[in-house]
């Protein structure tokens, strides 16, 4: 069997989940033997050029670009994994979900104390800037997600176990100490 192809991305996340992936330490060498990385910040491949077996996504969706990215992953990956709290339930960015978008934008761009009073007060609206969603969405509220790995970030050992399972088909082993929501 050829090596499974893995793609990863961070949407509305902090890259902490990716950092945690790197936290598997020297097992990363084993991982390179086990899987081939495709589109991912790990190898800086920017575009899908082939079908991938597994897509791993950290972060939820807070803007239109996140949504497009996520849909792109769904199209190009057989299995999608939501990695970490933000992907699973919006996480910290979702703390804005109870605040009207108008208030958020005004606070950020018009009323914030860090705004230079000399600058024109506008809410950025260039067509190239992604559009903000009404709230932050967990991934599975937008596309089908096959697996979820909780944690903020998910512990490196949990990620490792999950990758092993996905790459080798062995049964998923979850030690209690690594299954956490924080």
């Amino acid at each position, binding site marked *: 069997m050829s090596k499974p192809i893995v793609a990863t991305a961070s949407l509305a996340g902090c890259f902490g989940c990716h950092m945690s992936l790197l936290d598997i330490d020297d097992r990363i060498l084993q991982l390179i033997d086990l899987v081939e990385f495709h589109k991912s910040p790990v190898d800086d491949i920017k575009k899908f050029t082939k079908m991938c077996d597994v897509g791993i996504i950290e972060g939820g969706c807070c803007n239109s670009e996140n949504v497009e990215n996520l849909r792109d992953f769904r199209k190009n990956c057989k299995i999608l994994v939501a990695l970490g709290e933000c992907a699973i339930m919006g996480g910290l960015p979702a703390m804005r979900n109870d605040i*009207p978008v108008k208030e958020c934008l005004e606070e950020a761009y018009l009323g914030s104390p860090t705004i230079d009073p000399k600058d024109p007060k506008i*809410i950025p609206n260039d067509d190239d800037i992604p559009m903000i969603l009404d709230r932050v969405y967990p991934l599975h*509220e937008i596309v089908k997600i096959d697996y979820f790995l909780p944690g903020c970030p998910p512990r490196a050992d949990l990620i490792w176990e999950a990758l092993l399972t996905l790459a080798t088909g062995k049964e998923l082993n979850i030690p209690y100490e690594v299954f956490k929501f924080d």
Partner: protein
Amino acid sequence: MGNIAEVVSKAVESYQKDPTRLLDVIRDVQDALGQVSDEAIVQIGHLMNLSKVDVEGVVTFYHFFSKSPVGKYTVYLNNSAVAVMMGRGAIAKAFEKEVGCSFGSLSEDGKIGLYDTSCIGMNDQEPAAIINGVVFTNLTEKRVKELVTGMKAGRNVSDMVKDLGDGNNQSELVKSMVKNNIRQRGSVLFAPYESGSALRKAVAGTPEDVINEIKNAELRGRGGAGFPTGMKWDFCRRAQGERHYVVCNADEGEPGTFKDRVILTEIPEMLFEGMAVAGYAVGAAEGILYLRAEYMYLKKFLEKVLDDLRKKNILGKNAGGKTGFDFDVKIQMGAGAYICGEESALIQSAEGKRGEPRNRPPFPVQRGYGGYPTTVNNVETLCAVSRIMVEGGKWFASMGTVQSRGMKLLSVSGDCDKPGIYEVEWGITLEQLLKTVGGSGAQAVVIGGPSGTIVGKEAFGKKVCYQELGTGGSVIVISKKRNLLEIVHNFMEFFIEESCGWCVPCRAGNVIITNKLEKIMAGNGTKTDLAELESWCKIVKGMSRCGLGQTSPNPIATTIANFRSLYEEKLKKVEYETGFDLLKSVQESCKVANRKPKIEGH
């Protein structure tokens, strides 16, 4: 409007600071001030030595109490499924247009408030509303205009009632336009009855004799659950306690039921006498009629009936002429909460608390009102008791079917020619019933109200009785022209509104399954969604604490079982669908940023 401190202290004093009368205190304040403000709540707490949060908990639990002002005139328009079927939508619009505010709010001048309310027990004469306690039925747009004009002109609400209803609705103390619509009289409830005859018979024997007679009649409770009345009384009688209580459940909140209202209007003597018989049987000296707030318009009349019965010595000291048997009845008003029909929630409410059911055991017959053994019985049950005393248990048991003896009052409404009250023998088939009420050709029948079952044509041959199609009395006929899923949705909104909120599966679960139903109704459901909906109904039913949550998914569960194709037609033939709409979700931010949403390829 009086001064808050004055009003509160007067209200508190008139109930001697008795915490069990908290609902009455709050009602007096609400009536006098048009609201129960934070300030009033704090003062009630101080004067009654209760913590503010407990008083506020009660104020915010009941639909007819409000912390914010609800106007000099407060319109509560029924939003139950049958009201909607009978044209509530247009009536609501007419009110909104005439008053100038939308439902759930107060007019600009603060004079008129418009609010929705759950079924008010007038399903046979919808659309209907309660304005300052006065019931207006069969509303038309024209009538709404008149009413609003009247309110704007400051008219007295009761003066705006034009034609009075039939029977005792015309009594000086009722003067209501409500109609009884008794379509079929049977031999138990609506046959001639001589006041005093039941109690005379009862007290001639021992309490055990009475209980045995009820057992022989195989009478089962008419409130819905169908518990054997004789057995309940037996438990209650045997339960240890300094005192015992008889409580009559006149909360009648199940949408589509209105038979208790007609009993209360036409044969209250028979009911109160039944309570006295129950009191004699279980050893109680006090009875409480827990009357739903929607039936406030009957209160004065019922008080008068009680007075007359006292004069006739059917109530009071040595009731029924039996030395040593003292029994009297008081009326406790509810304040708008369907859950208070559940017997233990009713007791909590009658004790002046939030109407949250209790954990059982202990059951009310062990520890009920005030902690004393209490039998809670439905209005109709207690009337049947009176008849059984006169005619005998054997006579009663000779009617009906094996496990459902005697006759039953049905409240029939919806798409039929003759909505109203039917006294039938248990065991009548739905088909026969539909024919009698002029509802043949129905698409579906809701039997037992939202918490009961929704059945289709295949089941019309079934009998109305506990073994086949049990009911507390509500029968709603639904013609082919109706969208059944919308009716199901209306029922689910009812349960969400009326859940007491105590336990998780009912409080959160009903919202969750209703959202799922909405997803399917919007055309965004898949096969998986339908399967999930089905299994989530089981979770809510299986894990909820009381009868409300244990039955609230029934509208969905029984229509999935009996009308599956209605759901399947709506499903998308895709594997996964979230219903997420990118364009919609960026609308707001684009508007704020003053840009045009640009969505390519979606």
